[in-house]
Structures are given as structure tokens and as C-alpha cells.
């Protein structure tokens, strides 16, 4: 599968010469770390070959057995797998809470759950889907796939990455345990003040929500930073900016949106906690505070959040469309620029969530224009994908089916979004079931359908086994039909006057039939996920073996074994094309010269992807886990007393000192 690079290919990427041959390269006259002669005593990957190289690298990069080893791992694939599984567990929990809500709404004045539990349920549903599933699932796939797709051995800042997973896990665990103990938050996933303030939400429920935000945001930003640095600095030699896979582009833009959007909501939730805990009056109008300030802060994050959920999905769609259309992406540059435009525009839309708050009309109308405008980059993406399929030879496997489902549902949701962009129309449908229908079309259509496609698509890479195609097709049919049965009628229910977040309604409102249809659809839709789960579990044990590249795809992750070895690649590939495996069908060009005994990676330049440095990446460590435990204690303690910041900081500082303590033997000295 691999071969050493030939002189012909060196012409395409002359800068790899240094690593391949030890000759000087790069910018003339500039000395770089990579020019440093290799330590003659250290075994390098041009000195061994074949199974021995694989085994030695696996030993260097592997995760140790035992509890300590498991908690210390910094392997992006292990962390990524945990991330994906955790996020999908939260997807199921969120779905279950939705099922209970739908059962309650199946008929008027139903008494299955009361208002208190119902309010907790929709808060948990929204919070779980947005913060514990929506944001993490995109990042989870990035953690697993981005290093593979850019051809490196681990994610940048792997310990930060491990830390972020534990913080996310503990935060999600905390809010669900609170819910189980009947102190779950009940103020909505948006927790508007003054309802969530100290006066109208006594007790700890709103604090649980606000602190969960802190957990997920800390972890979200940490992962985003790791991904940005991985994409910018750890790409395989030759992977210039215009050879970066579209999935990686989507995750890169997504990470930037996360980095810029999440601080706003952390500010909002921190202010809320201060109002609740130490008696500030930031949001208290009676004391000169402002309730609308909270909404601005929340939605300045909240609208980009929608794109944080959607952008990774564009990456899944691009990958699946290209592979199953059997044609390279049409309009690569246009697709990338659309992603960037979406990222920027997503910060200029937030006020369309606040059109009914009585803001000045001129200001509001600006946001009508910007909200309408985002249809353009999204339109470009849709058209480019259709063009790719048009000129391709579509292979109708389950991943592609789900992407086709995505087109039907997401485009419908995007178009109903145009109605919400209009201030006058929004004044009728805002906060009704019409909006519920709209954003489920956008989010389930725009994220969950591509996600399911992505799981069918990358499952062989994750596990080495194929998922059942027959069950997959059933799953698709069931999910597609039941989704529409559940959510299409909600458009009408909303227009007929049914507001959101009501735990019941009067019989004389005339909403009973439509709600019953939605409930039936929702139950079947949940059933389709049970089928999906069965397919995952049975295929993971008994599915046919996949081999490295079962779909005959073109990107680098398919060059590694299925599941990938700890080192990802025995030798780092050299990229000469956007779809390296299609350009080099027999053997992928590689560079040699990296250490076999140390965790050494190539650091490359940002634009040209020129190999620049050999650098070691951190060894496994238990400290990130301990730091996450200390962080959790601090965060949970600070819900009860501000003094938690005093006594909670020393353990965290201790954990961080352990984490960053210089390791003389392996990392820095050699």
C-alpha cells in the first residue's frame, strides 16, 4: 500500500525533500528545526519496514491497559470514539424526553405528566440536543477524523482534548443526575431572565442549567482550539489549503465559529449565576439591569449555535456525496467560500430570535436582510452538491440515502426559515409550533440525517466492520416517513395558534388531531432509532469485515487500517491531490524520517502544507483527567457558594502543575 516518494512526485511537493532525503529545503537561507540532523541512536522509520514498523509504532503510540491507562489516553481515536458514543447516548436521552412530551400532547388536557415535569422535559430536551449532542457530535467526529484526514498521528494538544472530553462528560452527567433527582432545570434551554433569575426560580434548578453551560463551553472551546491547530499545523506534507478535504474545512470553520460564539453564552450564564448567587442585578430591571441584555448575549451565541450544528453536517454531506457520486466535488472553491461566508454571516442574524421584543424597526429590518442573505451561501452549497451528483455515477448505499433525505428535509426547513427572517411574518409564527416544525426540519434534516449517513459511512473505519445495508434501508425509509409525519403537521398546528412550551391545551382549540398525528410520527421516528441502535450493536459484533477502504473513497482516512492503528499511518503520506487515494490507486507516496520510538509528528506550514518541523506530541497522562475532576468540583461547588472559587482553585492548580510538569526523559530532551 505504501511506497517511498519518487523524484517525479517530489517535483509536485519539493519541500518534502528534507524529510525524505535529509537535504536542505524550504525557504532558502532560513534554517529550520527540520534541518537538524537526526539523532543517530534513535530508530527512524526509514530504517525498519513492514510489520515490524507497524508493531513498533503501535507500541510507541498505543494506549496502555488498565484503568489508569484508559483514563490517561491521549489517542484522538479513543477520545473521539468516546465523544461520539457519549453524544449519541445524549441523543437518545433527548429523544426519550421528546417521546414523553409527545405522549403528553397526544390529546387535550392529558394528565400523563404535569406542568412541572413537562417544563423540565422540554428544558432537558433542548439543552441535551443543543449542548450535549449538537455541539459535541460535530466536534466528536472532528476529533476522530480530522487527524486521519489531514494525515497526521494525533490531534494537536491531545491532553487538552482528553481534558475536554471529561469536562463534557461530567457536565452532561451532572445535569441528567439533577433531572433524575427531580431538580432538573425547568426554565427552557434558553433560560430567559427574569424567569430564570433569583426571584422566579428559587432553588438550584436554573443554576444546574447555567453551570452545565460552563462545562460544555469549556470543553467545546478546548476541542475547537485543538482542531484549528491540527488543521493549520499538522497537515501532511503537500496538503495545501486547496487540498484540504471539505469535511476538514467544515470542521475548521465550525471550530472558529465555536471559538467566537461560545464566550457570549458563557458571559450570559456567568452573569445569571452572579445574579442568582451573589446578588448582582445585571438582569434585574427593578435595579437598573436589563432583561433584554440577556437575550442579546444568549442569541449572539444562539444563532451561530445553529450553524455550529449544521457546519459539520455539511462536511459529512460533502464527504458522502463525493464518495458515492464517484466524482470529485464540483465547485470546491465555491463550497469552501460558502462555508466561510456562512461562518461570518452566522454572527449577524441573532436578532431574528428577538423580533417580537419591540426592538426599533430599523434595526430589526437589518436582520431581516442578513437572515435572508444566508440563503445564498447555503444555496450555493446545495447546488454544488446536486451538480456533483449530476455529473457523477451515484451509488445508492445507505449513507447516500440519508443525504438525499437531508436534501428534502433541510431545504424545506431552510425555506420556512426565510419566512421567519421576515419581521412581520415572524410576529405571527414566532414561539409557535410552526417554529418548532421549522427548526426540527433544519436541525434533524441538517444535522441528524447527515449524521446517520456519516455513521453508516465511517462505521467500517471506526470498527472494521460494515453495517447491515438491508437494515439501513429500512431505517432510512422509516425515519424519513415518520419524521415528516411527526413534524410537518406542526407547521399547521402553529399557524392554528398553538404556542410552544405548553404542557397541555383545551379541547376546544381544535389541535387534537394534528397533535395525535405528530405523536404517532414521533413514536415511529424514535422506533427507527431503536432499529439503528440494533444495527450498530449487531454489526459491531457480526458485520462483514470492511478492509481499509470499503467504499472506494478518496480521502486519507481510508488509507489507514480499519480500525486505524494507534499511529494512524506507518509513514506519513504526501498529498498531491484533493482525493489522494483516487490520485494514487496503487500506492500512496510517503515521507520517511520520523522517529519510531518517540511520538514524533510533522509540523507543516499553514498555507503551503510544507513540512516544517519534527515535533514530539505529549505522552499519555492521568493529569488531564484529574484536572477535569478538579474543575468539576469547582464548578459544582460554585453553584452553592462563591467560596468554591477559593477552595476549588488549589486542587485545579495542582492538577495543572502535574499536567505541565516537564518530562525529562521522552519529550523534550531527545
Amino acid at each position, binding site marked *: 500500500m505504501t511506497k517511498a516518494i519518487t523524484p517525479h512526485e517530489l517535483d509536485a511537493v519539493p519541500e518534502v525533500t528534507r524529510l525524505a532525503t535529509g537535504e536542505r529545503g524550504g525557504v532558502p537561507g532560513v534554517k529550520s528545526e527540520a534541518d537538524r540532523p537526526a539523532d543517530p541512536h534513535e530508530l527512524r522509520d526509514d530504517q525498519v519496514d513492514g510489520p515490524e514498523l507497524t508493531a513498533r509504532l503501535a507500541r510507541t503510540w498505543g494506549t496502555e491497559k488498565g484503568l489508569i491507562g484508559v483514563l490517561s489516553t491521549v489517542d484522538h481515536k479513543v477520545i473521539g470514539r468516546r465523544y461520539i458514543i457519549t453524544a449519541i447516548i445524549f441523543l437518545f436521552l433527548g429523544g426519550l424526553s421528546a417521546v414523553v412530551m409527545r405522549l403528553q400532547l397526544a390529546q387535550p388536557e392529558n394528565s400523563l405528566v404535569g*406542568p*412541572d415535569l413537562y417544563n423540565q422535559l422540554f428544558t432537558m430536551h433542548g439543552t441535551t440536543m443543543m449542548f450535549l449532542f449538537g455541539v459535541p457530535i460535530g466536534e466528536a467526529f472532528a476529533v476522530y477524523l480530522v487527524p486521519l484526514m489531514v494525515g497526521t498521528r494525533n490531534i494537536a494538544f491531545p491532553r487538552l482534548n482528553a481534558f475536554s472530553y471529561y469536562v463534557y462528560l461530567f457536565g452532561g452527567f451532572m445535569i441528567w443526575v439533577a433531572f433524575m433527582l427531580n431538580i432538573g432545570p425547568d426554565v*427552557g434551554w434558553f433560560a*430567559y431572565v*427574569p424567569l430564570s433569575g433569583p426571584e*422566579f426560580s428559587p432553588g438550584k434548578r436554573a443554576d444546574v442549567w447555567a453551570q452545565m453551560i460552563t462545562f460544555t463551553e469549556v470543553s467545546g472551546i478546548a476541542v475547537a482550539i485543538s482542531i484549528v491547530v491540527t488543521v493549520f499545523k499538522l497537515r501532511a506534507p503537500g496538503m495545501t489549503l486547496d487540498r484540504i478535504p471539505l469535511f476538514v474545512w467544515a470542521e475548521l470553520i465550525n471550530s472558529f465559529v465555536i471559538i467566537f460564539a461560545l464566550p457570549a453564552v458563557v458571559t450570559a450564564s456567568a452573569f445569571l449565576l452572579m445574579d442568582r448567587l451573589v446578588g448582582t442585578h445585571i438582569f434585574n*430591571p*427593578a435595579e437598573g439591569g436589563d*432583561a433584554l441584555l440577556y437575550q442579546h448575549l444568549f442569541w449572539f451565541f444562539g444563532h451561530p449555535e445553529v450553524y455550529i450544528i449544521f457546519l459539520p453536517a455539511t462536511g459529512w454531506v460533502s464527504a458522502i456525496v463525493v464518495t458515492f457520486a464517484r*466524482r*470529485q466535488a464540483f465547485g470546491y472553491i465555491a463550497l469552501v467560500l460558502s462555508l466561510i461566508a456562512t461562518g461570518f454571516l452566522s454572527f449577524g442574524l441573532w436578532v431574528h430570535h428577538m423580533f*417580537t421584543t*419591540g426592538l426599533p*424597526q430599523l434595526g*430589526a*429590518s437589518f436582520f*431581516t436582510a442578513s437572515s*435572508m*442573505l444566508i440563503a*445564498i451561501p447555503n*444555496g450555493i452549497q*446545495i*447546488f*454544488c452538491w*446536486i*451538480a456533483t*451528483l*449530476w*455529473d457523477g*455515477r451515484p451509488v445508492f448505499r445507505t449513507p447516500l440515502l440519508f443525504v*438525499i433525505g437531508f*436534501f*428534502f428535509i433541510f431545504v424545506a426547513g431552510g*425555506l420556512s426559515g*426565510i*419566512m421567519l*427572517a*421576515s419581521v*412581520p*411574518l*415572524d*410576529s*405571527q409564527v*414566532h*414561539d*409557535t409550533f410552526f417554529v418548532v416544525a421549522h427548526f426540527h426540519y433544519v436541525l434533524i434534516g441538517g444535522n441528524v440525517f447527515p449524521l446517520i449517513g456519516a455513521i453508516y459511512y465511517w462505521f467500517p473505519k471506526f470498527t472494521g466492520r460494515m453495517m447491515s445495508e438491508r437494515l439501513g434501508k429500512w431505517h432510512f425509509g422509516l425515519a424519513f416517513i415518520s419524521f415528516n409525519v411527526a413534524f410537518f*403537521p406542526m407547521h*399547521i398546528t402553529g*399557524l*392554528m*395558534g398553538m*404556542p*410552544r*412550551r*405548553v404542557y397541555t391545551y*383545551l379541547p376546544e*382549540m381544535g389541535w387534537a388531531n394534528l397533535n395525535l398525528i405528530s405523536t404517532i410520527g414521533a413514536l415511529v421516528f424514535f422506533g427507527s432509532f431503536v432499529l439503528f441502535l440494533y444495527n450498530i450493536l449487531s454489526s459491531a459484533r457480526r458485520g462483514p469485515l470492511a478492509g481499509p477502504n470499503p467504499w472506494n473513497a478518496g480521502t486519507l482516512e481510508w488509507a489507514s487500517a480499519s480500525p486505524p492503528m494507534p499511529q494512524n499511518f506507518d509513514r506519513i503520506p504526501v498529498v498531491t*491531490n484533493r482525493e489522494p487515494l*483516487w*490520485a494514487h490507486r496503487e500506492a500512496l507516496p510517503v515521507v520517511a524520517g520520523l522517529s519510531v520510538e518517540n511520538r514524533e509528528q510533522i509540523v507543516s506550514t499553514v498555507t503551503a502544507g510544507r513540512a516544517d518541523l519534527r515535533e514530539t506530541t505529549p505522552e499519555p497522562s492521568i493529569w488531564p483527567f484529574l484536572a477535569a475532576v478538579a474543575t468539576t468540583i469547582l464548578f459544582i461547588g460554585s453553584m452553592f457558594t462563591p467560596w468554591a472559587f477559593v477552595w476549588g482553585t488549589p486542587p485545579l492548580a495542582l492538577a495543572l502543575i502535574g499536567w505541565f510538569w516537564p518530562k525529562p526523559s521522552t519529550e523534550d530532551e531527545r
Partner: protein
Amino acid sequence: MKRVAPLLFIVTLPLAGCQGWQSALDAQGPAASALAGMFWIFVSVLGTVWLLTMAALLLSLRRRRPAHADPLATDPRTERRMTITISIAIGLTLVTVIGLTGLSYAAQKALFSHKDGALTLMVTGQQWWWKITYEDEQPSRVFTTANEIHIPVGEPVLIKLEASDVIHSFWVPNLTGKMDAIPGRQNQLQIQADRPGVYRGQCAEFCGLQHAHMGMLIIAEAKDDFERWRSHQISSAIPPDDPERQRGMEVFLSKPCVMCHQVRGTDAGGKVAPDLTHVGSRRYIGAGTLETTRGNIAAWIIDPHGVKPGVNMPTIQLEPDEVQPLARYLEGLK
């Protein structure tokens, strides 16, 4: 025919939304009509866009390449054709979006330019009911009621919106779009009904436990009927004349009811809960929760938390023989 029936049902579903006392599509005022008209324009334009896109998608699923074609190979002519097609599609999308934005701006201008109306109401959202004050230049003609608004047909009515606790949203879809009531702020909204009728509204911003039971009625009636209603509402409650209702009044005045409720013309002067001076004339009690009947009033008094869990009204200890007179008294406050 049997097979057609469910299909017909599905096809006519959207039409069901065209009627109803709380429906955005059953427009009964100029603002709601403009919005409904605009809604259908958006639906037809955007529906066409969706159909065209899906048609293109379905056509694109045909296989145009030979089985073993190089996935990296591209034909410059096809590339150029697709580039041109996509550019045209994007151009059309832009035109559509700009057109719809223009339409939206025009509607926005018309909707939010308030005409001078004869009548100004102050509506205060509270957990979980609506306090309604009819303003007037003469202080003696100002009065307060709850959860039921009467307006004269064909006249614009200005509504000033405030909230006393958390954020609520005033929404009567048959008449116009919604507007939030936010503590510390005052918003304004204009409603107008073209035809006499009873229209329902409901709080549209999640406001806590009983957000679901925070309804109100708008009763549009002819000018004369409205004036008659108004002068009656200004007047104090008429003292009961039969012994049972007198007993009911005694019960009312001797219990904690008076701490929160007002009945003008009696010693009950509480202002934190709905004014009950003419509660018997209102069609619903509990903010659109129960129809005003003697039985419902009794049920509400005996167990408010059974009807509306979490409501701010406490359960009052009453002797069994006190319930019936009290309910009769309140029912009689026409």
C-alpha cells in the same frame, strides 16, 4: 373511496387552519389579513423553489458516467455548463430573496405605523393572567378588568404592554402578530377587528409553570354594544338581593379572598389578582381555563391547583355550606 378518504383528510388538513378562534390564517383584522396574504405569497414562492430544487436533485440521481470512469476526471464542457447553471440558479435565488425582503419591508412599514385610535388599553402580563386597564382622560372612567378585552369593531385600538414579573407575549393571531411584554419596558401593539366575533389569544413566551393556561378573549362588538359594556364595567358591583348570594358575599368578604381580589363597591380591595367586580360577565375564569359556570367557579375555589397546578391562588379553607353561596355570589357579579 375508502382509500381516498385518508388522502382527502391529509389534503384538507391545511384548510382546517383557515378557521378557528385562535388561528393566524383566519384573519379577522387588517393586520392579520395582510400577514396571512403575505404568508401565502411566501408559501407559493418558496414552495416553487423547493419543488424546483427537488426536481433538480431527482434528475441528478441518474447515472451519467460509465461504470469505471476516473472519479477525478472532469469534462470541461460539463464543468462550464454546470457553472453557468449554478450561477443562474444563484442569481434567481438572490432575486427571490431580495423580492421577499422588499415585500417584508413594505408589510413591516404598514404593520408598525400606528394609527390614532379612540381607545388605549394597558395590558400587564402576570403569572398567569392578563390585567387589563382601559385608559381614559377622565380618571373616573378608567377601570381594570382581567383576561377579557372588549373592543369596538372597525376601530384601531392601541395596546400598551407591560409585565409585572417575567416576560410574557401578547398574541391574538386572528387580529395581528405577537408582541412581548417585558418587565421594565413598555411595548405597543395595535389591534383592529373587522367583524364582530370572539377571538382567543394566549401567552406566547414561556413564563413558568402555567404558561399553557394564560389565555384571554378579545370580544369585538358594535360600537353601541361596546359603549354599553364599558359603562357597565366602570360601574361598581351591584349588591346581591337574594339571601344565598348575600351569604356568599359575606363569605367572600370574611375570607382571605379580599387580600388579593377587588370587587368594587365592597371592602374587597386587593390588587394582585384579577379584579372580580364583573367576573360573572366574563366568559372564562382562570385566564381562559374554565368556562364561567357556577360549577366551574366552585371547582376553581375548592381546588385551584387541581385545575391549574402552581397557580398563585391559594387553596382557601371553606365549610361545605359556604361553597355554593360563594359560587353563586361570584357568578352573579355580572
